[in-house]
């Protein structure tokens, strides 16, 4: 029997992260990235947003929002490089770059949602 693969676990992270990204990211980008900066809508001010970010439920929400989609990105981007550019021989470098980035982002998300 061959070596046990951790592919199913990584695929599960990809799948859950992709669903969260699909459900939540468009509205976040629309509001924080376009509607608030361009003045189309009035966004919450500093105090209001800080109070919101400190709510326990928001902390959990932000932790999920800022971690699982990163693993979706890591998995999908890895295969984009494999298939699109056919650079399978750089396997280890790509894995380190993609999943390493997701892990660093996760560490930041844990720190920020905890300490904010």
């Amino acid at each position, binding site marked *: 029997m061959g070596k046990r693969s951790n592919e199913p676990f990584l695929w599960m992270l990809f*799948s859950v*992260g*992709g*669903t969260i*990204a*699909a*459900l*939540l*990211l*468009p*509205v*976040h*980008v*629309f*509001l*924080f*990235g*376009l509607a*608030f*900066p*361009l003045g189309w*809508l*009035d*966004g*919450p001010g*500093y105090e*209001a*947003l*800080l109070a*919101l*970010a400190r709510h326990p439920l928001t902390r959990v929400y*932000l932790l999920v*929002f*800022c971690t699982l*989609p*990163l693993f*979706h*990105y890591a998995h*999908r*981007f890895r*295969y*984009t490089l494999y*298939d*699109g*550019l*056919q650079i399978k021989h750089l396997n280890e470098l790509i894995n380190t770059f993609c999943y390493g*980035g997701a892990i660093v*982002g996760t560490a*930041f*998300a844990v720190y*920020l*949602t905890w*300490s*904010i």
Partner: protein
Amino acid sequence: MAIPTYYPPRAYRTRVSTYWWLRSWPYLRFILRELSSISVAWFVLVTLLQLGALHRGPAEYARFGEWLRSPLMIAGNAVALFFLLFHAITWFNLAPKAMAVRIRGKRVPPLFITVPNYIAWLAASLFVAFVLLRG
């Protein structure tokens, strides 16, 4: 007597061009869908930077707001929104293929999975907008 050496036949593999995904629209669409993952990472990063600025105080947060208003960021986020909508639509449309739900041994029709996904998307978006805009 000489022992014949066994040469295993080398597998025949056709070479695929690096730019195979430029050949046809469905291929290009596939690569664009896969590239949407960059926009996912991008906006999670923006959100993390925003939380960091929020954490460091009002002056830093004002600077962050200034940065979001710069033309480059507006353009970047407009592109990100396009790719994220592309991701969401393709994701929900593929959901029936990934979720093989059976009732009494029969596959549930695809629309029974796609439509609730779109309803959940709408509800989640409205909820986030409501929480942020109620003030």
